[in-house]
C-alpha cells in the first residue's frame, strides 16, 4: 500500500487507511491497558486487542489484519518497554500463529465462519504459538504441556467473548455512515 502525492488516493483507499490507523491505535491502547490488569498467571491474557484484528479482517482483508497485528505487537511492546524481551517474543509467537490461523480460516471458509469462530481459532493459535515458543526457548521440558489444556480452556472463553465483542463492533461499524456507501455499492453489484 504505497501512495504518492502524484496520484491522490481514492475515497475507499483513504477511508481504509484512516480506519486501519484508528483500529491499530485502539489495539495498542487495549494491549497496554491489559498489561495493567492483574493476571492470575503470566500466560493468561484477555487478548482484547484481537477484537480489532478481527474487525480489520472482516471489514477489510487478511492483509489489513496482518498489518494491524504486527504493528500492535511491535508498538505495544515498545510502549510497555518489553521490546525484544522474552515476553515480547512470546507475544509475537502467539500473535503470528493467531493471525496466521485466523486469516487462513477466513480465506478457507469465508461464509461459514463468523467472528466468533475465527476469534476462537485465533485464541487457540495464540495459546499454541506461545506454548511452543515457551517450550522451545525457555522451559525445555515436556511437563510444560501439562498446562496446555487449561490454557486452551481459558483461550476458548476469551476467544468466544472477544469474537462476540468483534461481532457487535462490526455491526455498529457496518451501520456507520462511512461504510454505508460501500454497502450500498456492494448491494448494487
Amino acid at each position, binding site marked *: 500500500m504505497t501512495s504518492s502525492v502524484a496520484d491522490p488516493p481514492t475515497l475507499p483507499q483513504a477511508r481504509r487507511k484512516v480506519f486501519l490507523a484508528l483500529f491499530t491505535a485502539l489495539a495498542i491502547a487495549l494491549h497496554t491497558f491489559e498489561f495493567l490488569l492483574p493476571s492470575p498467571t503470566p500466560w493468561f491474557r484477555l487478548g482484547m486487542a484481537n477484537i480489532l484484528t478481527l474487525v480489520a479482517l472482516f471489514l477489510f482483508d487478511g492483509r489489513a489484519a496482518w498489518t494491524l497485528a504486527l504493528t500492535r505487537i511491535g508498538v505495544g511492546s515498545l510502549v510497555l518497554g518489553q521490546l525484544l524481551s522474552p515476553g515480547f517474543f512470546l507475544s509475537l509467537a502467539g500473535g503470528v500463529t493467531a493471525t496466521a490461523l485466523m486469516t487462513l480460516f477466513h480465506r478457507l471458509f469465508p461464509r461459514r*465462519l463468523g467472528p466468533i469462530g475465527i476469534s476462537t481459532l485465533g485464541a487457540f493459535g495464540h495459546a499454541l504459538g506461545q506454548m511452543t515458543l515457551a517450550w522451545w526457548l525457555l522451559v525445555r521440558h515436556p511437563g510444560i504441556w501439562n498446562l496446555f489444556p487449561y490454557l486452551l480452556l481459558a483461550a476458548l472463553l476469551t476467544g468466544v467473548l472477544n469474537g462476540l465483542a468483534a461481532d457487535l463492533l462490526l455491526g455498529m461499524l457496518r451501520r456507520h455512515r462511512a461504510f454505508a456507501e460501500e454497502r450500498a455499492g456492494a448491494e448494487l453489484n
Partner: protein
Amino acid sequence: MKQFWARMLPGDRVVVLSLLLVAVGLILLQLGRAPGRTVVAEVDGKVVFTAPLASDRQVSLPGPLGTTELQIAQGQARIIASPCPNKVCIRMGAVSDRGELLACVPNRLLVRIEGGDDHEESSYDLLSR
C-alpha cells in the same frame, strides 16, 4: 444467551465445540495418569537400586563414566549431577508418574518409576533373557 447463540454461524459452533472437546479430552488424559510408588535404577540393564518414591534421599549410582547423583525429594525423582557430556538426564527434570523414565545413555543409567506393589509388571509366568 439466545441472541448469543444466534450470532454464531454453524461453522463457529463446530470450531468452539471441537476445541472444547480437545481441551476436556486432554485434561481427562492428564488426570488419568497414575502416580508411581517406587524408583528403580538400572545400570547396564541390572537393577542396582530400588527405593520408595515417598522417602527423601540422595544416592550415588556408579556407571562406566563415573557416579550419577539421583535425588528423591517430595515424591519426585531427578538426576542432579552426572559425569555425562550433554547433561540431558539433568535437563529431563523430575519424574513422578508410573512409567516415566530418566535416562543417562552415556553412563548406561536408566531410572524408572514403577507402580509398586500391585504386580502389574510381573504378570508373566516366566521371562527368559
